[in-house]
């Protein structure tokens, strides 16, 4: 690296410093508090108290049988964890499948039209998430719009039980996070040189081959950014599973909230939150390594 580049790097670091400072204070500080709380004892009514203990961490993985006092795997926790991961991955996949054609469509409009389409994509942000989620509840519940229409059309004989299932949570999360997928993918496709597509066709690729071997690898940074922006908040989603999943189909976010609320077990909630953070970190590392490096000749 030349001296000039080093200089440029130092300048850009100092430009980013205020924002970095804010982010560090806002994230590292509270995280440390959460980490410390996870090693403390639950308070009498709420909060935490001494002594320091690893009890909460044991509770994350193991559960003590209330009758014979034996230790067993905390299956309920694992189920909730697994459901969260599964639903978040599926949300990322669904938003990708819906978002790719959408982003492509917007990026291929005439330049003076694109702003309008992007504006339309962001309209849902105007309304509070809770209101929008309740609106989806209204649509998919047994007496809701969807079931009424399907019944009228004779497609189904009895109302579909969608509400309070994983499907409902999935629909809600895909709806909420779709713009997060579309926007970065739009940015990547906007930079995509369509002559590469002509080159691919010219070299005997059909449409699917051109998509798979040229478009997707070239816009990979956008896909990567979009899926992270969808997957991470999905994993910690709270409102959507609460309103659409009901009490049974909890996700990890709801379970953590439960510990800080009714459960009155702040250390367990804190330990779960730390675990979630570690899981997200690991998942992202693996994901970026695998997808970020695949097919790149320069390593």
């Amino acid at each position: 690296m030349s001296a000039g580049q080093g200089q440029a790097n130092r300048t850009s670091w100092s430009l980013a410093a205020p924002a970095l400072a804010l982010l560090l204070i806002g994230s590292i500080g509270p995280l440390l508090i959460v980490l410390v709380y996870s090693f403390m004892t639950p308070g009498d009514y709420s909060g935490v108290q001494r002594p320091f203990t690893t009890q909460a961490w044991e509770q994350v993985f193991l559960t003590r049988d209330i009758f014979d006092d034996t230790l067993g795997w905390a299956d309920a926790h694992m189920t909730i964890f697994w459901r969260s991961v599964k639903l978040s991955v599926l949300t990322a996949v669904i938003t990708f499948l819906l978002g790719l054609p959408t982003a492509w469509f917007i990026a291929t409009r005439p330049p003076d039209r694109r702003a309008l389409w992007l504006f339309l994509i962001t309209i849902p942000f105007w309304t509070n998430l809770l209101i929008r989620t309740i609106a989806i509840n209204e649509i998919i519940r047994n007496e809701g719009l969807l079931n009424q229409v399907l019944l009228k059309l004779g497609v189904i004989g009895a109302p579909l039980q969608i509400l309070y299932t994983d499907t409902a949570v999935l629909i809600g999360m895909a709806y909420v996070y779709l713009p997060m997928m579309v926007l970065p993918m739009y940015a990547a496709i906007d930079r995509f040189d369509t002559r590469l597509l002509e080159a691919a066709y010219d070299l005997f690729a059909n449409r699917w081959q051109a998509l798979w071997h040229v478009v997707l690898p070239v816009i990979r940074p956008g896909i990567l950014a979009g899926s992270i922006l969808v997957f991470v908040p999905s994993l910690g989603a709270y409102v959507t599973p609460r309103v659409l999943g009901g009490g049974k189909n909890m996700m990890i976010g709801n379970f953590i909230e439960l510990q800080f609320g009714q459960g009155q077990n702040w250390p367990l909630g804190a330990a779960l939150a730390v675990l979630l953070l570690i899981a997200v970190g690991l998942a992202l590392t693996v994901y970026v390594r695998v997808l970020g490096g695949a097919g790149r000749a320069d390593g």
Partner: protein
Amino acid sequence: MDEATRVYVKDASKRFGHGATVVHALADVTLTIEGGSFFTLLGPSGCGKTTLLRLLAGFETPTGGRILLGDQDVTALPPNRRPINTVFQSYALFPHLSVAQNVGFGLKMQGIARAKRDARVDQMLALVRMQDFAERPVAQLSGGQQQRVALARALAPEPRVLLLDEPLSALDLKLRKEMQIELKRLQRETGITFVFVTHDQEEALTMSDRIAVMSAGRVQQIGTPREIYAHPANRFVAGFIGESNFLPVTVADGAARIGDHRISLAAPADPGPATLAIRPEDIMLEPGAALSAEVTDTVYLGNAVQIMARLEDGTQIALRQPATIDLPESGQRIGLRLPVEAVQILEAE
């Protein structure tokens, strides 16, 4: 020449837009490109040469007419089903692939087995002298190297026709000269029909077996470089290829009249007003000649001098002479001879 690689374009036309904004990019173009030849489409930007190339590649479908490759009608075939490959103006190399992966792309899409593909890629890289760069990402290559990779990539699937869309325009002069020779060599060695698009007349003259000069969506003239330079079919061609003087004349009795000076013609021409075209280097200085002019300016060009002069009727004329002659002064009168074999009679303006 090779029948299967001959390209036949019949009455091809292409319109863009509709209603009042319709643009005729190509108007009833008919031409034959002999198999195994180096054929150039030459013209200024907007003349339709790139549109014609895109029709050959299959990126556009003609609004009228047909395109045949050998005796196969390929008019409606999509680009991925034509045995024709393209070297793009901006190269359009795949940025996420290495040099070797770029070159092997077409073969991979054709489903050719790995071992055979690798061998062919090596062979292609050797052909363009890029063996040492096989594993490099294309972003690390210079313009000239990218150019070679783009060539290797397009040649690897052994197309019957190779299309080249102004491939040298992004290179500097020295590299461009080198690549001109290189392209000519590749064409000879592979025997593939090259269809080369350029707006650079010098490039066209030095490389082509045949040239189609295009303007306003039409082919103005097709011929060998020599034919086109020595016998331009019309004023556009005479002006676009090299420099020409255009003198208003009147044709009568097998001769052209400039004022009261008479030049007998080698080829018959229709009587009436016409334009006489002659290259600056073809005009001879001849003291005491019947056609005289007054020198207005002289320009030293290194290997030649350009003399600007005014005929008696006021027409400006340029002539080029070896730099070794004694330079005439401005205002001096000189005698000119227009050799009959160098004179072209074109339609009056």
